[in-house]
Every structure is written in C-alpha cells, then in structure tokens.
C-alpha cells in the first residue's frame, strides 16, 4: 500500500556509488570466479563452539607471512659472501633506518614461528583433530614443522659470526653422524669437505628460496584440506564433528544440519 516515493538525490547518489564499487568486482567475478572463491574461503561455516585455541593455526600462518616479508626486505641489504655477510648485517642493524626493527622482527619472529607451530600441533593433538578424515593434514603439518626447523638451521649461519659458524659446524656434523647416509648428507650441506663461502651461499639459497617455496606450497595444501574437511569441534562439544551452527534454520541447508554419524554413533 505504500506509496512508491520518488528516490531522493541521496538515494540516487548512493546507488551510483554502489554501482561504481560493484562494477570492477563484477568484472573480475565474471571472468575469474575469484570473488566467489574468496567468499567461499572466508565465509565458511564453523562449529558453534570453536575455541580460541583454534586460532593458533592462523597465528602460525601470520608468523610465516611476517618472516617472508621481513626476509624479502632483508635480502635487499644482506650480502651472502664470506667477507661481507657479517659487515652487511652490522650495517642493517646499526646504520640503516629501521633496519634494527626489521632484522629484529625476522630474528625473534623465527622463534615465534617455531613456538606457534608446536602450540598449534599440541592443540590439534589434544583436540583429536588429527583423526579421520584429517590424518593427511597432520602429515602435511609434520612436513611443515620439519621445513620450518630447516629454515631455522639454515638461517642461523647467515649472520656469519662465531656463534653462527660453530653452531653450523656442530649442526652439520650432527647430520654427519647419521648411519650410512650421514657423511654424504653433511658433505652435501657444506657443499664440500669444509665450511667455506660456498656453504654460506648454499644455506642462503636454501633459506630464502627453496625451503620457503616448499613451505608456501605445503601451506596451500594444508589450507585446502582445512577448507575441504572443515573445522573440528572441540572434544567437549555436544555436536557432531564439523557440524554447523545449531541456530542455522534447518530448511536452508537440510543436508548439513543433521550429518549422518559415522560408525553408527555420533560423538557425545
């Protein structure tokens, strides 16, 4: 019954503004489907009783991104040669504007990354989130942990001071004591029979290109599996694992609100 009122000038302006914002988004969506993909990724259903502990994975990812960004910037100033490495790090720390901060972020962020990985792993273990059907994601996570530690090992040599040198001597020789393959692994890591400038550049390449590339790829797989399999309910949840919010109107998603319990019985 309402009288259709003439749209005011403000309404028209608002409409135009929305059209201007939506136009590029629609353009992108029509050609790539990316907008829908991002919405699918960000606006997933999660169990109603997810816990703060379940943010540890995202925290670890954030720590990795911080490492990647600070590392890329540090690479602009760092020189991986035996005569310049230590000097360039001193230059970054003492001379360059904000160098102390970015190097500090990278140095301390490295420990934060490792600690968060372990906390995240502990949460997954204690919540039983590694069980069917998420075993593969646990395995991918273990690979990520190993590669994260490899980042720590290779990054430790780069300051090229006494601590870095002798820690790498001991670390490489530890690898060398492994049965059968150990001596070969140690020589591969050194790039020869002694630690030389070749070892430094080799560790630099591993640290900033090879291992981070592997980590990024594995993170992609890790996230894909999280999205595909959904977030686990905490162990104290009264709902079945991965169930949607209880207040979701049933008629909207009838197939998902009452999942068929596996093996005859639901979790309780």
């Amino acid at each position, binding site marked *: 019954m309402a009288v259709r009122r003439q749209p005011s000038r403000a309404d028209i302006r608002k409409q135009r503004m929305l*059209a*201007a914002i939506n*136009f590029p988004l629609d353009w992108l969506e*029509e050609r790539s489907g990316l907008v829908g993909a991002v919405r699918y990724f960000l606006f997933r259903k999660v169990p109603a009783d997810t816990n703060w502990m379940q943010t540890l994975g995202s925290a670890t990812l954030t720590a990795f991104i911080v490492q990647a960004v600070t590392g890329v910037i540090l690479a602009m100033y760092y020189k991986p040669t*035996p*005569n310049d490495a230590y000097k360039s790090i001193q230059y970054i720390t003492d001379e360059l504007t904000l160098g102390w901060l970015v190097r500090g972020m990278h140095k301390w962020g490295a420990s934060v990354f490792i600690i968060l990985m372990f906390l995240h792993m502990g949460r997954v273990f204690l919540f039983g989130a590694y069980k069917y059907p998420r075993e593969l994601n646990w395995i991918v996570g273990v690979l990520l942990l190993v590669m994260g530690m490899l980042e720590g090992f290779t990054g430790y040599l780069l300051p090229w001071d006494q601590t870095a*040198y*002798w820690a790498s*001597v*001991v670390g*490489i*020789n*530890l690898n*060398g*004591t492994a*049965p*059968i393959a*150990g*001596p*070969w692994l*140690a*020589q*591969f890591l*050194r*790039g*020869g*029979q*002694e*630690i*030389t*400038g*070749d070892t430094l550049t080799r560790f630099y390449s591993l640290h900033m290109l090879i291992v981070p590339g592997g980590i990024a790829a594995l993170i992609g797989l890790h996230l894909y599996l999280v999205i595909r399999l959904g977030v686990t309910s905490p162990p104290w949840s009264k709902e079945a694992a991965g169930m949607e919010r209880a207040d979701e109107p049933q008629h909207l998603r009838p197939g998902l609100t009452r999942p068929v319990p596996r093996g005859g019985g639901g979790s309780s």
Partner: protein
Amino acid sequence: MSEQEPLPEPHLPPPTLWPIGFAVGIAVLLVGLIINPLWIATIGGAIALVFGLLWARDATADLRGRAIHVEPERAELRPAGTAEIGPPVTPHPEPGERFPRSKFLEGVTLGLGGVIGGIVTVPIAGFAVLPGFLHQKRHQVDLGPVGDFTEGQWYIATFMLDPSEGDVSRRTAFVRNNGSVQAKGGQVPSFTIISNRCAHLGCPVQANGPTGAILGMKDVIEKTKNGKVTLSPTLPAGFGCPCHGGQYDTEGNRTAGPPVRALDRYDFSIKNGHVLLLSTYSVAKVEGTGAQAKIHKYKLVGPGEHVDGIEQVFYPLNPPHH
C-alpha cells in the same frame, strides 16, 4: 529495479578502435619527448588524451546506463549442405584390434613430458650436488722452518688451509717436534701434529695448560704461502673441547666425554727445511708417545664417526675427504 528483472545476459563489449589511437598518441608522445618536446610531444599528448577519453567513454557506457550495441558472438547457424560420402580412405580396423589413438597420444604426451623434465632436471640436480663431492682440493700447508720448533715443545699452530678462502679457512693444529729417529733411510725427523677438530662434533679443541707469555716464551710468527702462521708455545696436560666437554691426552687419545675416537692427525713432510702439513687422517687410538707412538691410522672421516669397533658398520661408505 524490480525483482522480476532477468539477470543481465553476459555480453562482450563491442570492438573499438579507440585504444589503437590512444597507443599511437602515447608512442608519438614518447618519440616527441626525445626529438621535440615542445611540439611533437604536445601533439602526441593531445592524441592520447582525446582517444583515451573516447575509450573511457566507451568502456563506461554500461556503467552509465547507456545501452550498448552487442555484437553476436557467432553468426547464425545455417544448415550445412549435404556432402558426398565416399568410402573411407583407410579401412576401418577390426573391432578388437582398434588402435587406441587417445591412449597412444596420452602415453606420448606423458613420455615426452617426462623426457623433457628429465633433460632439464638431471643436470640441475647434478650441479646442486656434485661440485661438493668432486675435485676436492688437497691442502698442503707451509708451517715455516723446522728450526722454529724447539724439540719436545708443544706449539699451537694457526694457519689458513686455503688463503684464497680467507679467514673461514683458518685452522689450528697442535705440533710437537719429537727430534729425529732412526729409520730405514737413516735419521728422519719426527713430528706429532694433531688436528684441533674435536672427534665428537667438530668444535675447536683447546690445549689444557698455560700458553704463551706465562711460559716466558714468545709466539713465533711466520709469513708463508698459508698466510700468517702463528706458533704459540704451550704446555698442555691434554686437550679439551669447550662445546660438550670431550677430553683427550697429549697423544690425542680420548680420556673422557662424548668423542668416539682419538683426535685426527696431519701427515707431514720436510721440504727445503720447512714443515709441510699434508693430508689429514683419522685415528682410532695411539699407543705409546712421541716418536715411538703406534698410531691406529684410518682414512679421514667426519667427526662423530666410528672408525673401529662394531659401530664402524654404520659408515660403510664415505665421501672423498682429505
């Protein structure tokens, strides 16, 4: 806008020539900046501006609600004419023997891809791995004249294994002149030269005892092809490692801690009156002392590797190491 309005049909923008004019304008502008900034560049800028505006006007027609002419993506379908059907050029294969062409192509694609991948990957992987194993340098270190080494006195000798590598190749050895001994070829000099690389994990082993000035002796410094060689007199009761506490006696035998064997030693020779360090070798244990020592000698292996006893089965093959 009512709810019944159908979704906008996907469409292609009509072809337009404005971008070409825009590109020409930019090109003229850039050329003009080099040859005649005042006139040609201005003309180019004007062309680019005009065509750019026309292009933008065209591109935003939809946004501004202007109806745009949509070219059909395909021409109308017309019925195809009837073709003369003759006999097939190649006879049809028997039903059971039909060669699976798609399978063949699949195999060829995968096979070729594999071959190309291999051709690219194998040399790269070889380059990443092999240089660390092949053509490893043998060192030969000149420690200076024999006369610098007082008989019976221990010296901490520091030198560069490879001066071209710089300080990272600086090494330390414990050297003692044992005097000359009777051998088949007459009197030959005897030296005990022990590497300071710990047989546990490779940390630098130190002399347990007073060194240098406290003994009332001066360091001997020689310039040789191995950089600055320093000989520091010392009076060790043994050698000890700061990292994990490995202890050795003055012959390099392990006395305590985690090391798995005795300290490595250097071969040596005397040439033109100079002491030359040659290859390093590993030692299981040493019986006796000085010139009379019986050394259980093995090929050089890494720290932490057993050279004798049952544990040696863990290290059947070692990379070349000198």
